[in-house]
């Protein structure tokens, strides 16, 4: 038993890398503050003939907390329940109107593998409302939302709740395969002799536990390692990465202080205080950050704990409706969900370049250009990943040689980019980040007065996602 424990402890630090492995970052940025001004934009709307308009009525999230802090004794469905209750409270939507519930999650708690259903029941939704859980690494809740879009657009549903949850404070650590096999055999053994013969096969190494994969299954490379190589491939220095991380933390701090993070709902944790805000926002100084040692490629790599997103607990949920339904129910929606795109590419060398591939495609599909976008919300897995994506989007060479495009899509203007912080500072609960990005884009468009937001994210497996969010006319 002791050996089991020590082993576990030895391995636990690994879990920190975990965070880095799933990258889900939707990017949502927005811009707009400055654009401001009123240049009256008479942009077209992206409504399509014969297809229902789909709107986000509103969305909420629990505060995102560093793993191992106030949420550490909860189970994932507790967090998901908090997000659902918060959404009910925020929107006052009658529970029986909801046709369907979809949640995204990455590391599944074995007891609640369909966490959407368990959370919905616990949150008091009708037991007649079906629910399912999706997983697509860091874009799981993006997948939950686009699944909802599909259900509504095809006329199957009118009202869908989509969300996501991740609780990295607790992860399923399993017995080794050998141990599991022995336990299962033991179950089948009928007689004492049979049982003894099974037990006699026991070896001490059966006790070494199995952690959820830290590395990409196909390449055996951890995400942080891949990010470090990606940054090196694009010749991004440690200083640039630290500066970007500092920007993210500073902007998040400001947004928090100014009360812009309106999607956050307080959560009374049983047995603890009420949590009201994200606790990972920690603007530091470049000097302090420069002192950290590389976390993955030692001793000369550039990705450190300070310029990576951290392991986070949190949940989010949004209420998605057909526009006519929302209006009939008297809602004033926040945004339309428009074209979206999933992409995938080489999981080894381009693991985190999803946004680069997805952005030009979704813009083309929507008939927009980079200039039309007022708010960019991109998922920040690592500073190096964001900066690499920016460089790739700004490179004709990359577009021509790897994306089969004639020219680059161009650089998103930084003043419209992740203006309220991002996953680096706000935190990144893998399964929940997608909804945060969409709400950040929607809220920024309302606040800053723009029309289009672009959400983009990379995900483990070399996948990526982008979606156009259009502000609902006031």
């Amino acid at each position, binding site marked *: 038993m002791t050996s089991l424990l020590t082993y576990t402890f030895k391995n636990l630090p690994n879990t920190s890398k975990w965070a880095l492995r799933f990258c889900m970052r939707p990017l949502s940025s927005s811009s707009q503050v400055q654009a401001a001004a009123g240049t009256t934009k008479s942009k077209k709307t992206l409504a399509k003939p014969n297809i229902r308009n789909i709107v986000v009525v509103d969305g909420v999230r629990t505060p995102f907390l560093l793993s191992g802090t106030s949420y550490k004794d909860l189970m994932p469905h507790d967090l998901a329940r908090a997000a659902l209750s918060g959404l009910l409270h925020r929107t006052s939507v009658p529970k029986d109107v909801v046709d369907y519930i979809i949640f995204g999650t990455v590391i599944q708690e074995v007891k609640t593998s369909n966490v959407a259903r368990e959370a919905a029941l616990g949150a008091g939704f009708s037991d007649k409302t079906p629910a399912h859980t999706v997983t697509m690494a860091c874009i799981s809740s993006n997948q939950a939302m686009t699944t909802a879009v599909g259900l509504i657009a095809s006329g199957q549903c009118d009202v869908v709740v989509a969300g996501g949850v991740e609780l990295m404070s607790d992860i399923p650590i399993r017995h080794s395969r050998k141990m599991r096999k022995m336990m299962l055999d033991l179950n089948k053994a009928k007689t004492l002799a049979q049982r003894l013969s099974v037990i006699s096969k026991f070896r001490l190494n059966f006790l070494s536990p199995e952690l959820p994969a830290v590395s990409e299954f196909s*390449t055996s490379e951890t995400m942080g*390692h891949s990010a*470090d190589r*990606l940054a*090196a491939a694009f010749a991004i220095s440690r200083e640039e990465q630290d500066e970007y991380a500092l920007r993210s933390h500073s902007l998040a701090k400001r947004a928090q202080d100014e009360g812009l993070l309106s999607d956050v709902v307080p959560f009374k944790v049983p047995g603890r205080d009420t949590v009201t805000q994200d606790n990972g926002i920690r603007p530091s100084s470049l000097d302090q950050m420069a002192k950290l040692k590389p976390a993955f*490629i030692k001793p*000369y790599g550039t990705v450190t704990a300070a310029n990576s997103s951290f392991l986070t607990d949190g949940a989010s949920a949004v209420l998605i409706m057909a526009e006519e339904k929302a209006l009939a129910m008297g809602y004033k929606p926040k945004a339309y969900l428009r074209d979206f795109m999933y992409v995938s590419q080489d999981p080894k060398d381009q693991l985190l370049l999803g946004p680069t591939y997805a952005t030009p495609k979704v813009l083309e599909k929507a008939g927009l250009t980079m200039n039309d976008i007022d708010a960019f919300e991109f998922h920040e897995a690592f500073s190096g990943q964001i900066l690499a994506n920016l460089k790739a989007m700004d490179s004709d060479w*990359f577009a021509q*040689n790897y994306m089969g495009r004639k020219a680059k899509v161009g650089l998103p203007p930084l003043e419209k980019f992740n203006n309220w912080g991002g996953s680096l500072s706000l935190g990144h609960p893998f399964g929940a980040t997608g909804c945060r990005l969409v709400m950040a884009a929607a809220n920024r468009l309302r606040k800053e007065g723009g029309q289009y937001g672009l959400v983009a994210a990379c995900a483990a497996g070399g996948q990526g996602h982008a979606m156009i969010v259009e502000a609902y006319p006031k």
Partner: protein
Amino acid sequence: MVASRAIGSLSRFTASRTLRCSGYICRSFTRASALLTRTHINYGVKGDVAVIRINSPNSKVNTLSQELHSEFMEVMNEVWSSSQIRSAVLISTKPGCFIAGADLNMLNACTTSQEVTQISQEAQKMFEKLEKSTKPVVAAINGSCLGGGLELAISCQYRIATKDKKTVLGSPEVLLGILPGAGATQRLPKMVGIPAAFDMMLTGRSIRADRAKKMGLVDQLVEPLGPGVKPPEERTIEYLEEVAITFAKGLADKKITPKRDKGLVEKMTSYALSIPFVRQQIYKKVEEKVQKQTKGLYPAPLKIIDVVKTGIEQGSNAGYLSESQRFGELAMTKESKALMGLYRGQTQCKKNKFGAPQKEVKQLAVLGAGLMGAGIAQVSVDKGLQTILKDTTLPALGRGQQQVFKGLNDKVKKKTLTSFERDAMFSNLIGQLDYRGFEKADMVIEAVFEDLSLKHRVLKETEAVIPDHCVFASNTSALPIGEIATVSKRPEKVIGMHYFSPVDKMQLLEIITTEKTSKDTTASAVDVGLRQGKVIIVVKDGPGFYTTRCLTPMMSEVIRILQEGVGPKKLDSLTTSFGFPVGAATLVDEVGVDVAKHVAENLGKEFGERFAGGSLEMLQQMISKGFLGRKSGKGFYIYQEGVKNKNLNSDMDSILASLKMPSQPDVSSDEDIQYRLVTRFVNEAILCLQEGVLATPTEGDIGAVFGLGFPPCLGGPFHFVDLYGAQKIVDRLRKYEAVYGKQFTPCQLLVDHANNPNKKFYQ
């Protein structure tokens, strides 16, 4: 088929390895060394770090030539004398190659061992100076770092290597019959320990970067990069340089020490090795092992042990002196010339002389999922070729699929593949029982049972479904391709591809063209073979082609010798001590007695008395008793699963006794027995060249060594004649001819060579 799995053991030692180290390419630099504008090296200074970049012009690889050597010396002198420079980085800007070894032409140009010793001593001096440099030098290694390249790298103060599949470090000199002549015999034992150093130098194996890091051969690893804003290879080299510069600075500032922490096991090992008695035991053990494996036929390994020993026991001065002298001696040996010749031959047989095919084969189909068919499929799918494997019954197909999976999975166990890569490769294989999808096949290789009417049926069935451009290749060891092609509607698309078993281990592929085979069909077959990683010889069609035809008269002599009362064990030991990797009697068992008889009968009919010798009755009796060799568990020996030492099959005694013939005392000494076997082989090989079955002696040598296990130390039949003298061989043949008759009559080409000592197969 004839060259069966037995021959695979060739690859255990010696030349087959040589040939695998793709790096060594011999280049001759004819240009006079330009002193002012350096051609191989340029250098720049970044801050206080000199970055020395190697890139030999007009070549895929960098080799340590005299020119590069002197340019490097010049540059180092400038580095040492410049007050602005505090450290240096040594890097190659050639993708995939740091330095692939010494320039072999430089060695070949030497006519005396003194000259070679001189070259060695110059290199030793330069590397010693480098080793003692007060300004730290970091070797930044991307790609092959072999032989002299490794010796250079280990003379530097620090080594950083990319963790790329192409980055390999090693001392392959032994495979060329020489030893590392520029200090490695002295430095390697200190750096990686005596046992690991022996392993490297005696096997010549290439070590991947991650393994090298664990051994202490390199100090840091750099991961290869993916695409950024320039091509990955280019950026990876740049990145390697950037990282190396930071380490060079760190070393100059004494922030980094080149010493590494040794693990407990390593510390204990090095403690044990500090005891003279332990060291003596190790030398003894290694020597014994080498003796056993080389049978004393290869001088280089023993000299390597001797030189290492001298250095450790008598100090480095004695060690360096011994290294350079032994190096000089070895370079002049016949074994070394033979092995270097094989190396050059292998390089040639890795090229497609027929040019690129009009249409690259993307979809391959293999008919027959037996040992050969599945083997062919395996070496295709693991190179990314889409392959259909077709058989007629589900169990046969399943067995074949399992063979492919096992072949790939064994690599996973050896950690040369990940399970994910295995799965991806295995998905290139489609197993089926019908001809679905053949309409998209670019090439069909049939590996069905060796039966002409069956091959005809399969050819007709296939031609009914394949597209016009599709090549039909027949894998057969003896059936003439022309005869198979008689039923073809498009004989220009029919070709022979003779693989050797086990396909994934044996490097040789013998491609057989008929008079009707088109050049593009040949180009296509060679292209596929090269992609499968094969060394290729292209020969003309005829009974037994080249390889089977050479082997058969030797086999006939084997039976004769057995009939004369030499036991299988004795015969095996005579052949292996001559340098064959597998004993002659064992070879019959491995090939399969039935196959051997089938071939011997067919070729015997074609070639008549030249293939005479032993009585086929012996094989016939063995077959009737079910002694088919390894596959049936009994042949000359008894084979049991899991039993390593095989015992003689005592039931053979009666067969041998019944066919016993009197031995001829004049030609039955051990040496005579060996030469009776070898001269028949060599004579037939030269006849193949004379008749035009072979296009070049090189292909003859490569085919004999890689396909049939001809002793690598002799360099193949043609090298053998060149190095040992045609006259001596003709004399031997005449002597045996007098006793046995026409099967020993030397062919005209051999006689010509004997009559004119200036005539050589290799000029």
